[in-house]
């Protein structure tokens, strides 16, 4: 029952919020609904074993409304459930025109995301995959920045092409399944011949690679992150990119193992290239949002590489890092938003000396930024350590080249901290004041997660262990 409720609560409350005329209560309503989802997902995390739900949906097509919440799904639905209240609380003071529509679409996005993470039926998965996209398209196009329409459209068309190719792949596998069904287990046991595996791999992988995004499919991402309203950017980079990684682990690895094996070196090369490439671009950025966007591409590249090296330790690292990257990047976006709202700029060249004016902001920012660099004691360290370990077992050279990106990450992150917070105060930062109470609270919670997960990551590894071992059990 819990998996069903996890989707229904945001879906129904999202539709209900639309009906509220633009009153401030839509904000409260959205926050309460997202908190309810959080409680449920925590309940799921503390329940032992995988949770399932199953109901008839399209009997003629062999598709059922079936949900599965195993370790990985529990972890990702927890991430989704944490993200939304955090985002709502952190942007509580932001005023949106037509706010009921804004919060309604946000909750629909949450329903779509949770559906993607929970679906264990391929057609249902595809449905939610698209359902998560459509509200985001409207969110970005209505409330985004100056170039929003063109940029969002590029993002939409990119991902839509990917989804359609995935649909063809789904149909192909469906036609090959023994019992003509979309059920996950039927897909896993489709036993495709070699050439078919390669075709299916290509069709699915393009969709997931666009969503993640990995080089060379990443060009939609920095623009989209920059132009979207910050609340949406947080969801996009914190949760939505995990859809791609999740889908590779959930669908691609067990379904076409031979093709994954055959293409692993190709994908790892792409990912590592993307990591270095994005890190180098990040160094040259003068805009906080764009820097975080490029740094996010680098992190995702590492996760993708760690999946395709196909060893247990690498995959465990990916599991932890999916959660941690979500927390860290949302923290960074909140801080970037605070700076932009207060000072009206995101350019380093127009900032400086902010630490003198707002010490708490500076401390929070530094902790989040260091977590982004994966310093020991922060959460990202554990994940990256495991992933590099996996990479090293695969190929020492690859690990060494990928390791350069850690150094580059330190370069751009520390550079950003230095330019924003230290040095002399300039015209724009002269009037700066401390961050508001609700943002401090939210960020303290995130910092707490960062530190706890950095010191004691074992529960998270335990939580996702069943998914990891299930994948390697069949080999």
């Amino acid at each position, binding site marked *: 029952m819990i998996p069903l409720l996890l989707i229904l609560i945001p879906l129904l409350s999202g539709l209900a919020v639309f009906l509220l005329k633009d009153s401030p209560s839509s904000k409260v309503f959205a926050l309460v609904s997202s908190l309810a989802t959080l409680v449920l997902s925590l309940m799921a995390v503390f329940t032992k074993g995988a949770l399932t739900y199953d109901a008839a949906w399209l009997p*003629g097509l062999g598709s059922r409304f079936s949900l599965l919440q195993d370790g990985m799904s529990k972890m990702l639905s927890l991430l989704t459930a944490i993200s939304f209240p955090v985002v709502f609380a952190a942007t509580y003071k932001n005023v949106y025109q037509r706010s009921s529509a804004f919060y309604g679409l946000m909750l629909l996005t949450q329903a779509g995301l949770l559906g993607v993470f929970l679906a264990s039926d391929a057609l249902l998965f595809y449905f939610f995959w698209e359902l998560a996209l459509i509200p985001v398209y409207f969110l970005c196009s209505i409330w985004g920045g100056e170039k929003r329409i063109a940029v969002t459209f590029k993002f939409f068309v990119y991902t839509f092409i990917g989804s359609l190719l995935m649909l*063809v792949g789904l149909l*192909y596998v469906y036609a090959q399944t023994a019992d003509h069904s979309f059920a996950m287990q039927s897909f896993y046991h489709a036993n495709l011949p070699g050439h078919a595996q390669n075709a299916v791999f290509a069709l699915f992988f393009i969709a997931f690679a666009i969503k993640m995004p990995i080089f060379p499919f990443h060009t939609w991402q920095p623009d989209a992150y920059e132009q979207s309203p910050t609340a949406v950017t947080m969801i996009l980079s914190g949760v939505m990119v995990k859809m791609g990684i999740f889908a590779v682990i959930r669908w691609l690895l067990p379904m076409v193992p031979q093709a994954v094996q055959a293409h692993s070196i190709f994908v790892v090369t792409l990912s590592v290239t993307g990591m270095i490439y994005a890190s180098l671009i990040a160094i040259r950025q003068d805009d906080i949002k764009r820097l975080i966007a490029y740094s996010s591409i680098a992190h995702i590249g590492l996760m993708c590489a760690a999946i395709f090296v196909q060893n247990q330790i690498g995959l465990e690292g990916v599991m932890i890092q999916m959660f941690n990257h979500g927390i860290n990047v949302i923290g960074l976006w909140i801080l970037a938003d605070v700076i932009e709202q207060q000072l009206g700029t995101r350019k380093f060249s127009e900032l400086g000396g902010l630490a003198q004016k707002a010490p708490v902001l500076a401390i929070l920012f530094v902790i989040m930024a260091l977590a982004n660099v994966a310093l020991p004691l922060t959460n990202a360290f554990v994940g990256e350590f495991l992933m590099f370990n996996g990479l090293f077992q695969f190929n020492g050279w690859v690990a060494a080249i990928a390791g350069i990106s850690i150094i580059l990450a330190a370069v751009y992150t520390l550079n950003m901290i230095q330019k924003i917070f230290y040095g002399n105060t300039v015209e724009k930062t002269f009037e700066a004041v401390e961050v508001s109470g609700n943002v401090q609270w939210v960020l303290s919670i995130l910092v707490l997660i960062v530190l706890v997960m950095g010191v004691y990551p074992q529960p998270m590894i335990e939580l996702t262990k069943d998914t990891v071992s299930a994948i390697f059990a069949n080999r």
Partner: protein
Amino acid sequence: MNAIIVSALLGVVMMFSGILLKNKSSLKYIAIGGLLLLLIANLFQTYGVYTIVVNSHDLLRFQKFGLFFNSIAISATLIYVILSGKDIENVGNYPAEYFALIFFVLCGVSILCGFNSLLMLFLGIEILSIPLYILTGADKRNLKSNEASLKYFLMGAFTAGIMLMGIALIYGATGSFGITSPVFINTPTPGSAPKASFLEIAGVLLLFVAMCFKVSAAPFHFWTPDVYDGAPSVFTSFMATVVKAAGFFAFIRLLEGQTAILGPTWKILLSFVIISTLLIGNITAVFQQSVKRMLAYSSIAQAGFMLFALYSFNEVAKEGILLYAAAYSLATIGIFAVLIKLKDYTLDGFNGLAKTEPVLALTATICLLSLSGIPLTAGFFAKYYMLASVVKTGTGLWLVIVAVLFAAVSVYYYFRVIQAMYFREGVSETTEITSGFKAGLIFVAALIVLIGVLPSLLLNYFYF
């Protein structure tokens, strides 16, 4: 049989009611009542109840599939008249005749749903087409409407000639007008494949060309944009939906048993037609500034998808074409109903519609999402069935991939309208909009979403 008789009678009734009734606004309600009657008559036949039993000497053969399709066509017309009835009245001075002509078109559709002989096919196509030539030119004082009507008529007449030629050749080769199975000449040496006569092959190809013209598949689509653009918008809506879907139904019924004689050439030929239809429809639609003309090209593009049913000819394809006809008709009727209410048919005319008329904008958006095949709308399952039917045949995966890439292109021009409505500033001007019209639109949108979530509601009915 019921539907053929009832629709022909209702056409006559409508004509006379134009003379007898002084109050023109009641015509719409008579038409709605007539359509309901027609729908009921057709449903009766589906369950084996006949008004008049006519021995058609196997010229007509009604099967569940055809009758069900006819019900969809009649229901779509019903929704169309409910939504746009008022606009039909406003086209010219003789609204009764327009309604009468619509009933005659439905008579043609009913024949096409049950023809079992090439003669009946020809009759059905002509009964369907001739009223359309008149409707296209209904706006008598508009030069574009006249041009469109003449163009449509000349091209249509020419195609009728090609079709008759094809029928004649087939008759010459086989001595029969039947459509069920091609006649093979048995080769003298046993073991080698039987051959069809050249006459018969040529005949089937000519029929193929003529039907491609009727469903506006490339490279026989050139009439479509001009005719759809020139005709009064209400009638464009009707032509692009019910009539086109009926053409497809006839196409499938006609060629289902015939393609065997073309051998492997058939798939090559059809792939060429499908790809050029998708290419021309989608790429040209991208460059249109007038939404009406864009929808004309989009109807060509949608025809490309429906042609997949001919490629696969399996159960999935049959279910799919029913679903496609319903989904596509609903969405196109909806978007046209909104378009007619606007004063400016260009994209700029849609600017800011979401602020001035939120209900219209929302329903138009759902229709456009359905046309672009986004999940949770009927259009998704329509496209899904078409693609699935081809994938199931095990060949032509490349064709499916090409098709989905074009589907992605189609998103571009459909979403430009959504962008205009929601994201661009402007004051979209509309004619007066009644709350009844809004309720109708909401009903259409709800139906699209309902079929999009549970397509089995529509298709299960097919099996009972």
